[in-house]
């Protein structure tokens, strides 16, 4: 079973290296070969990830003995689902690349980037060592940068490059701050082992300082308002597969980092900063929700909705109770699936429309392309928190958690935040249905003189991608127990040990 661990973590990185080498070959490699290699790698690592979550193997080897760093890999109930999610979304993203012709670079490079992102994410979720966690975290940024800069939207000259530069500089700045925090945490805790860090008994004053530094760094990755400015541009320019991976893999790593590095080891410090985190989260929910009401670009609407949803997750984390942590973990995962679905659909629409301006009158997607329409309306419904779909549970449980925050937090203040978050859910409905009204039902008033341009429905690989994600959205919505059972013991440990 240890082999599965290695496969899940390292195989994608090897694949990325092979594909990168192929893309540098003087002779052009057949596209199908690239596709088969990358799909096989992603699928094998998905199977390996499932095996890892099921059998829970672990590896512990010396890495840099001089610094006491160890190559420690393993999963628990929190990282396991995220590991599977990352692998599964990568499989779908690989399929998605097949449906949208790659522009700007070779398909091999494109697939290499996806594989590298997956490898980095998998190692991040597998890492049991704080420094290894950081290294894996950083691996992801470069391929993502390439995805945006090389394969991004070229409708406006220079936009893709600018968005990619902003993305990489902003997140690297966040990483630098995070590294400072991690070094401080490892120094203060006396170990880099994430499991042992939780019980290391760092004094409260230091905890607050470390938590502040770590949160500042991680807030860029989550992203938490007001450090979200890199996200909309990155999402809008990234190719569809890039957006899917960005939303479903990269953003998950930020919240995962908050849970692993801050909520667990720095419990008291986090409690002191919780009101600030909660406030920023709620401002983010309302801020992003308001922007979505007037934003003209469809992809940016979905990107901003991500900011709002991550706000909900951060508010749940800030509440500090077991319920809050469960709501946050569930919301994190649900957001991964929902936004991957929405980006797949919206990316497909943008491809078909040759743009994503919402103000152009168009016939309804529900009539012109029923599958696309169904997937879109399902994704929007899930995003606004309709029950029996993935988004519902986290949303309601977050309100309950914020209404009864853990000890050491001001109850009255958190109740105000809970009420505001409930109002944010109304905004969520308003913008999701705005999109539904314009795109799904159609904004065509029927008096346009030009005959409407038709667009094809989902087919073949694209339909597989979208329907898999849609199925996941429904399953997560109807049966939340499985994941919550998986996470429950870890949640108890994380909060219990610290108390």
């Amino acid at each position, binding site marked *: 079973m240890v082999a599965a661990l290695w496969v899940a973590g390292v195989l994608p990185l090897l694949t990325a290296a092979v594909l990168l080498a192929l893309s540098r070959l003087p002779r052009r490699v057949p596209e199908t070969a690239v596709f088969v290699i990358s799909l096989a790698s992603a699928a094998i690592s998905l199977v390996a990830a499932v095996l890892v979550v099921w059998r829970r193997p672990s590896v512990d080897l010396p890495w840099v003995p001089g610094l006491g760093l160890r190559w420690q890999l393993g999963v628990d109930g929190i990282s396991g689902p995220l590991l599977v999610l990352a692998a599964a979304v990568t499989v779908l993203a690989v399929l998605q690349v097949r449906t949208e012709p790659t522009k700007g670079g070779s398909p091999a490079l494109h697939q290499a980037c996806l594989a590298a992102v997956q490898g980095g994410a998998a190692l991040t979720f597998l890492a049991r060592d704080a420094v290894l966690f950081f290294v894996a975290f950083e691996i992801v940024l470069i391929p993502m940068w390439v995805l945006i800069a090389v394969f991004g939207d070229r409708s406006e000259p220079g936009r893709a490059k600018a968005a990619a530069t902003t993305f990489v500089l902003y997140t690297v700045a966040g990483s630098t701050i995070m590294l400072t925090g991690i070094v401080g945490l490892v120094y203060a805790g006396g170990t880099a082992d994430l499991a042992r860090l939780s019980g290391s008994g760092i004094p409260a004053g230091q905890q607050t300082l470390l938590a502040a530094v770590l949160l500042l760094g991680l807030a860029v990755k989550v992203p938490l308002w007001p450090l979200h400015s890199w996200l909309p541009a990155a999402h809008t320019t990234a190719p569809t597969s890039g957006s899917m991976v960005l939303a479903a893999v990269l953003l998950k790593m930020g919240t995962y980092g908050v849970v692993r590095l801050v909520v667990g080891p720095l419990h008291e410090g986090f409690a002191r900063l919780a009101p600030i985190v909660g406030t920023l989260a709620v401002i983010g929910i309302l801020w992003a929700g308001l922007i979505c009401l007037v934003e003209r670009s469809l992809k940016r609407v979905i990107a901003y909705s991500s900011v709002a949803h991550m706000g909900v997750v951060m508010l749940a984390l800030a509440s500090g109770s077991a319920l809050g942590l469960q709501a946050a973990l569930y919301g994190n995962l649900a957001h991964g699936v929902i936004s991957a679905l929405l980006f797949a659909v919206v990316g497909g629409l943008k491809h078909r429309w040759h743009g994503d301006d919402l103000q152009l009158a168009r016939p309804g997607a529900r009539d012109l392309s029923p599958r696309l329409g169904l997937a879109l309306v399902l994704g929007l419904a899930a995003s606004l928190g309709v029950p029996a779909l993935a988004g519902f549970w986290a949303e309601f449980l977050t309100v309950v958690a914020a*209404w*009864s925050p853990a000890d050491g937090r001001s109850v009255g203040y958190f109740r105000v935040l809970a009420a505001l978050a409930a109002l944010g859910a109304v905004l969520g409905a308003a913008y999701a249905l705005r999109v539904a009204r314009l795109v799904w039902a159609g904004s065509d008033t029927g008096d346009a003189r030009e005959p409407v341009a038709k667009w094809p429905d989902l087919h073949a690989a694209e339909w597989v991608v979208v329907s898999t994600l849609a199925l996941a959205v429904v399953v997560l919505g109807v049966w939340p127990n499985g994941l919550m059972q998986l996470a429950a013991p870890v949640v108890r440990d994380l909060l219990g040990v610290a108390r």
Partner: protein
Amino acid sequence: MNLQAWPVQPGQLVVLVPAATAVLMVLLARRSNAVNFAIAILGALLGLGAAGLLAAQAARGPLPADLPTIGALPVGPGIAIPLRLHIDHIAVLVTGAVAIVSLTVQAFARWYLFHDPRYRQFAATVALFTAAMQLVVVSDDVLLTLVGWELMGWCSYLLIGHDSEREKARRAAYKAFLVTRFADAPFVVGIAALAVVAQTTSIRAIVQHWSALSGSLTLTAALICIICGVAGKSAQVPFQDWLPDAMEGPTPASALIHAATMVAAGTIVLARFAPLLAGNGTARLVLAISAGLSTVFAAALAFCQHDLKRLLAWSTVSQVGLMLLAIAALRPGVTPDLAVLHLLSHAAFKALLFLVVGWLAVLTGSTVVERLSGAVTDHPRTRRLVAAGLLALAGVPPTMGFVSKDLIVDEALRSAADRDAASVVAALALIIVVPLTAAYAMRAWLVLTHRTVSERYQELDVIDDSRSVREVGLAEMLREAEPVDAHGHALEPAPAPDPEPVDDSPRPPIPTRGLLWVLALVAVFGGVLILSPWLTVDYLHPNWWIVASALMAMAAAAILVRAMALRTVYGDAAARLPRYVRSVASRGLDLDRVYVALVATPVLALARVVARLDGAGERGVAALPGAAERFGRWSETKHRRTPTTGLVAVALGVLVIGLLGVTLW
């Protein structure tokens, strides 16, 4: 057969069956309407069967009160989320009503939407809607209630926006969802507040826990929050305006939403919290004011509507107001069974009325007064059905509407005699609304049965003929005229009169009409339900003075309406009102504009400001790399490529500090 031993209990089946039907329809019936209809009707029948089994179980003995669903959520020590169902006698009755209405609607929709390209989506949504309502009815967990509650909101969005080619339908659906969702924000906070203190989401546990704290301010606030959510879904003041607009949906959808599901769900939810409400005068007063205003206001508007479907919509607002008034007037220790009884009677007559009006609309082409005037006279098949529905709506004895409404009036007046503020408000509203209801029901009846319509058509024919008369010479006319005898009678034998004209106007198939007749019979004779042991209703000691005076008031209102309708072109009593009043009332007093001005416009303005701020922030961030690059270039231009004295000073300083450090270590 031993029901208790079944792996899945009827209480779970009433929810599962319609939900599974909806899923099956989405998965299986991709092309064929007929297959889809088969699944829909089979599912609805099985759903009714499940409700029937539940009733059989209830009749035979103790109900399996506590049923699991997907298992408790493991969310830590602070709160328990058991997610269980609770079946009581109210649930048994209401699930039955929902199942019957749902079956009728499915059967009717197949006929009504026969050529509709979206029939399949419609039928699937109706099934899902039914499942959601059944879940609210049998739920013993605020979280499950919320699941059903929000799911109904979503289904109503889909049903109202069914004809999404039309901008009006798109807007109505958007408005309906947003208004109810807005009201749900306090609802969510309210149930969260109740659950957090009780440390569980089980409704019975919450009620038990909070009963001991009946004076608490938190409880009052939480109950008012819940009432707010109920007012949203049930379209009570100040959220009433979405419901008449929701008439953009197809008629079967209206029948479902109004009669047995979403709009009535508020009554069920409040009935579950009735023990807490009964002990809390403030919350009841808020409820009484909202429901009282709604019931009177909506009844008055119903009288003025130009579109009979909107008349029915406003009447729903008014009737649901009655149910909520019954809860507002509750005294401690009294069960909310009266409200539930009125819910059942309303479900029967309102579903019936909507479906028959839909039928008439198919025949006449529209639901406005001009088109529907005399429709019942022209199509006598609908006569008895309409009569049953309107009599029950007006509350004429001995219909079920009379029984349930009169008992509510009786109860409210008794409570009002105890000087209970909420009950006084409720009683006042009831006294006004009883004759008003009779008035608008009478108006609808007079319009539908108007007799002079055929004369109007003859007039029109005469006008048309006069335009096509040819110039005819007298001599030619004499030559061509038929021979007559001395008395002017034709010599030729008169041709045999035409056989009786066959009424071959479109009509729903016989089983569907049978179901309509079932609803009609329930609406008329359902009052006998008060005799059942499942409802604790005090029907033995009515105050006959109240009954008699209510009947007198109704009769007076009806006679007045009859007098007003005399000599009007369409038999419409409202035609006597000033045109301005009618037009404003038809637009719901223009409250839509108030919503837009008070909420939509400011929020959008704020959104634009925020978007501009965010855009500025994003541009600022995006400009940073460029600025850094420029700064780098600029600093390089200052560099003269020679070591400066300043650098020597810095190097020396570093050396000195280093030496100091080493020596002092």
